[in-house]
């Protein structure tokens, strides 16, 4: 159950961490308007998306591997006892 839901949960957290700062920051702060906010929005969004998706994807992979290894170790130790 946890193994199936964890990647979805991590993906949703990554999505939240990506969208929230980009969306909330759009109209905040003064500054030179010469730059193009709408075009730059996608570069910022892409950077955050890459960071969070890659990081949480790696965390999910590590957690998944942990369970696989523990199962295999348990099976081998039981075989040894037999």
């Amino acid at each position, binding site marked *: 159950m946890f193994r199936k839901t964890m990647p979805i949960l991590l993906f949703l957290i990554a999505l939240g961490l990506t969208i929230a*700062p980009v969306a909330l920051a759009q109209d*905040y702060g003064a500054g030179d308007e010469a730059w193009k906010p709408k075009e730059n929005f996608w570069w910022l969004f892409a950077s955050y998306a890459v960071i969070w998706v890659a990081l949480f994807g790696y965390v999910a992979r*590590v957690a998944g591997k942990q369970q696989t290894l523990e199962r295999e170790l348990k099976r081998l130790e039981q075989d040894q006892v037999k």
Partner: protein
Amino acid sequence: MTTTNRILLALSGLGMIALCVMLSLIPRESAQGFVQKIFYVHVPVAWVAFLAFGVTGYNGLRYLMTRDMKFDRVAAASAEIGVVYISLVLITGPLWAKPIWGIYWTWDLRLTTSFILWLLYLAYLILRRSVDDRERRAQLSAVVGLISFLDVPIVYMANRVKASQHPAPVVGGGENSGLAPEFLATLLIGIFAFTVTYALLLRLRNQQARIEDRIEDLYLARG
């Protein structure tokens, strides 16, 4: 999950949330505007990659001195995480460069040495997969890890000693460098969040490496 891992997980989560809040609240930088906020993830991720490769080099050296496999496991775990982080540096850098410089990439000293760093540690990981004997793998990896680490100070110094397309350092870069307090706070929170996440991942990968060694021993015992 151990208590230490739970604490690291909680700190990592809090750090990420704090970073997210700070990224939402800090004002736009006047020259680059909105896209400058990539800085607050790009720099911390680079810092952690350097740290990870330092840990790999240090533990490789400890292995060569003691021949204790625990150092080899830490070195390998740290190198793998370091490659993930340096890959993120090499992806977020061009995403920031395109709207500011007009190009994704240029072969200047900072960018080239960063790319070489990525290749060196990728080679380190490929080497580990290609050698079956555990002792020999540990020895070769330790030497490669140590030599590869020599590129880290070169990357760090690249835009300090030579004019570069890459911006001059804004922290610790001399008299004209420095950040406004709210920008510096966001950067430090980012460094904290990504470093704690690295520590958690390092512990998890190290525990897994121990289990992998135990599994390998059991298979060898079965013949």
